[in-house]
């Protein structure tokens, strides 16, 4: 498994762990109602589980497993792959901090733009790799 994929898969597992920790606390809070403000982390739980875990793992595995280019090009420009990881994860963190009111609400919009930037980089890196070599 290539390094950008390993980074993405490990990050996705970290998000799974953090998102699930929030989930278990929310469910315990639902059962025993010990701290009502805890519900404020619900959007972050959703963000971590959906974008941090499911989307990031899918992108990381796709980067590893889709057909490579012939010759030395391999999986394309690795700098773009690292940029994709950086932009996507900055987006997740900015959206989450904004949902927790640590950042102003405009942060949510900016974070979504960063996430979209990560996905656009993913599309750019993979568009030509979605091919068949059987004719």
């Amino acid at each position, binding site marked *: *498994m*290539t*390094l950008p994929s*390993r980074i993405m*898969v*490990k990050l996705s*597992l970290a998000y*799974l*762990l953090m998102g*699930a*920790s929030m*989930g*278990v606390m929310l*469910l*315990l809070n*639902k*059962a*025993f109602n010990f701290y009502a403000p805890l519900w404020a982390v619900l959007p972050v739980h959703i963000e971590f*589980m*959906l974008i941090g*875990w*499911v989307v990031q*793992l899918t992108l990381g*595995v796709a980067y590893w*497993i889709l057909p490579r280019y012939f010759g030395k090009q391999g999986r394309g420009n690795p700098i773009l792959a690292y940029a994709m990881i950086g932009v996507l994860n900055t987006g997740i963190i900015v959206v989450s901090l904004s949902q927790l009111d640590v950042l102003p609400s405009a942060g949510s919009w900016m974070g979504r733009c960063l996430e979209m930037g990560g996905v656009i980089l993913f599309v750019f890196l993979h568009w030509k790799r979605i091919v068949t070599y059987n004719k």
Partner: protein
Amino acid sequence: MPLITRLFLKTGLIFFVVSLLLGIIQQIDALTVAALVPLFWHMLMVGWITQVIIGVSLWMFPGRIKDEKFHNQRWAWITYFLLNIGLILRVVSEPMLEVSGAWGWKITLAISAVLQFMALLSYIREIWPRIMSKKQRIKKKRAKRKS
């Protein structure tokens, strides 16, 4: 495809169908059930998507031991049972808690939360060491042969 992967995928498919049934029930006013929205989303995202991801990754990630002895796959089996028992307990206890609010349902819901969390810990324990490059895999194999 190993047995544990087939089980994850088939159980995931069952949750997929049931979650979509809940989605239909959600649209019918006469059939309203308590706590339907979180149940729909968790059966879809945990029961289906997460379970399929876990099943396929156990099969396709590097470093799988092809001998399917329980000992070789114990973390995967623990994940399977804890995740599914936890999710089923949630499906039963969450609507019942909204209807009756009895302590028994509160405790069942709490147990379901802990079981699902432990399942995910167990999955991470299994899959984390398998996230490795080709070089690392070869090195690990050589070290194993030597020992």
